[in-house]
């Protein structure tokens, strides 16, 4: 690293002499201020607010009406069955969402060819990731509909007989009624996760396609000469080389699983009977509900979710730190 510039000057000003120490701050300040106001401070404010009870209102003098309650919100949370259901669903999301990583890899392997039109196929397979989760939620809400959705229609074709009564109305008599996935407390969450997997698989697929592009060809050829093929080749030669892609796929999938909100809000709004709630949606529900705002309680739910996320974030940062030290 060079020191100050070699400009001959009798007595350089302080600013000139410390140019390299001052400059980065000037470049950083706009982003830092913005980020601090909207991201960093609110985190601490939320943590702090979780120790209060507050309906979000201010009195005439403009003072907040929040009341200090200490850890009361957390005690309430412990006894709140909805919280535990949400937490359990979050774990289900985390585990099942991980399926996107291997499934994405398999689709990538399937598509990693160079036949004509392959570029088109690859981008079409990636398509679900580009559209909004709101739209994905609406599509699947309709897809699962037992009366006129795709699931219902296929079910009717398999299990039902069409009968026409005397008046000429068409009715269906089914050996088993079509499943109403999103209205079933046991199945609704899995239905939403399956819908959420669709764009997530596409995301993992594109990560792996890029990764596969950069797998060292000579190593593959060498392994082939040694007789490796199929699963063995995949597991011992290819997958280790895909490590960076896998790392990112896992990161975005974990984040995506814990952030799941849109699909739940669109498909079930946490119902039936709160059975599909996750912490992110439950927090929104308690903090801004039609029964009045409960900012303090909501913040305590957010804090728990933040704690879970922090666990993963620390791991990711630690990994990045190792890379930084090793890399340069």
């Amino acid at each position, binding site marked *: 690293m060079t020191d100050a510039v*070699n400009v001959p000057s009798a007595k350089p000003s302080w600013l000139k002499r410390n140019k390299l120490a001052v400059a980065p701050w000037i470049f950083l300040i706009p982003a830092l201020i913005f980020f601090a106001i909207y*991201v960093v401070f609110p985190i601490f404010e939320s943590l702090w607010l979780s120790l209060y009870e507050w309906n979000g209102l201010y009195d005439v003098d403009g003072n907040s009406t929040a009341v200090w309650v200490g850890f009361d919100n957390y005690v309430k949370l412990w006894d709140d069955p909805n919280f535990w259901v949400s937490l359990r669903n979050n774990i289900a999301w985390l585990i099942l969402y991980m399926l996107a990583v291997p499934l994405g890899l398999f689709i990538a392997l399937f598509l990693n060819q160079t*036949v004509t039109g392959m570029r088109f196929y690859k981008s079409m397979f990636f398509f679900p990731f580009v559209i909004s989760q709101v739209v994905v939620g609406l599509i699947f809400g309709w897809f699962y509909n037992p009366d006129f959705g795709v699931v219902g229609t296929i079910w009717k074709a398999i299990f039902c007989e069409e009968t026409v009564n005397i008046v000429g109305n068409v009715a269906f008599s089914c050996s088993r009624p079509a499943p109403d996935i999103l209205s079933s407390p046991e199945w609704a969450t899995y239905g939403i996760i399956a819908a959420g997997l669709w764009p997530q698989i596409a995301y993992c697929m594109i990560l792996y396609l*890029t990764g596969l592009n950069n797998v060292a060809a000579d190593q593959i050829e060498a392994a082939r000469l040694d007789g490796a093929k199929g699963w063995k080749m995949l597991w011992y030669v290819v997958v280790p080389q895909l490590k960076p892609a896998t790392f990112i796929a896992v990161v975005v999938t974990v984040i995506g699983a814990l952030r799941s*909100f849109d699909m739940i809000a669109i498909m079930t709004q946490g119902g039936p009977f709160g059975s599909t709630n996750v912490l992110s949606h439950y927090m929104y529900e308690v903090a801004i509900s039609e029964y009045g705002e409960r900012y303090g309680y909501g913040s305590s739910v957010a804090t728990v979710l933040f704690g879970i996320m922090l666990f993963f*974030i620390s791991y990711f940062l630690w990994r990045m730190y190792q890379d930084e030290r090793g890399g340069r």
Partner: protein
Amino acid sequence: MFPRPIEKSTPAVRTAYQAFLPFALVLWLLPLLAIFLTSIRSAADINSGNVFGWPSEFAIIENYTAVFTQSAAAQYMWNSVLITVPTVIISVALACLAGYALAIYRFRVALPLFFLFVAGNFIPFQILMVPVRDMSVQTGLYDTIAGQFLFHAAFQTGFCTLFMRNFIKALPFDLVESARIEGVAEWKIFWYVVLPLVRPAIAALAVLIFTFVWNDFFWANVLTQGETAKPITAGVRALNGQFVNNWHLVSAASLLAAIPPVACFFLMQRHFIAGLTLGAVK
């Protein structure tokens, strides 16, 4: 190359593969195709239960115009544009500056600050929700376009800075070094040496942030209430309530909402994928 290139297989396998591809694609996009077919059906088809078979008539123009004439969809779309474009400009601009600072200068807090941006990018939105909403209400930014793009810009700055810093770090440092020896001012190095080189990163970030923010739903709910500032994602949900059982209209509206990011993706595919997969290769 793995798996073994299909050209090296027997012609039978090759034909089978090529025949299977379109089939797999249709299966993969089945939900999307189904909703597209629904969006061009007539109301009569929906009511008579013909939702999966071939449409009895095509009502593509009727349905898509109905979305605009019977709802505030046009307003929602425009709001989305007004929220998304400033977000892209602000966050990418701030990230160019911050990424440059974090990549080029070696100062003690460079890495911790970088990690601050990275971590901020991963946190759950809910931990920000109450304070940001409260702050917006206090400053009169609640239920406005500006209230939304200011927040999005600040939040996306985290991701953009992560991206920019890594991109600039990968540039040859000699360029900066030799410019310094020439006595070029720091901001001129940024403007004339580094900025032209990060154009691909700017393009990638622009399409990504556009898509992320266009598709945002959570903040649209937290920071707006009326029609005046609602983006299309939240608008589609409102339409869903308004068009109960008019699945052909809901489908048409959802597909309309998806068009801009999809168009953006297909037009800028290379940049889009380069942006998403940054770091997927070493």
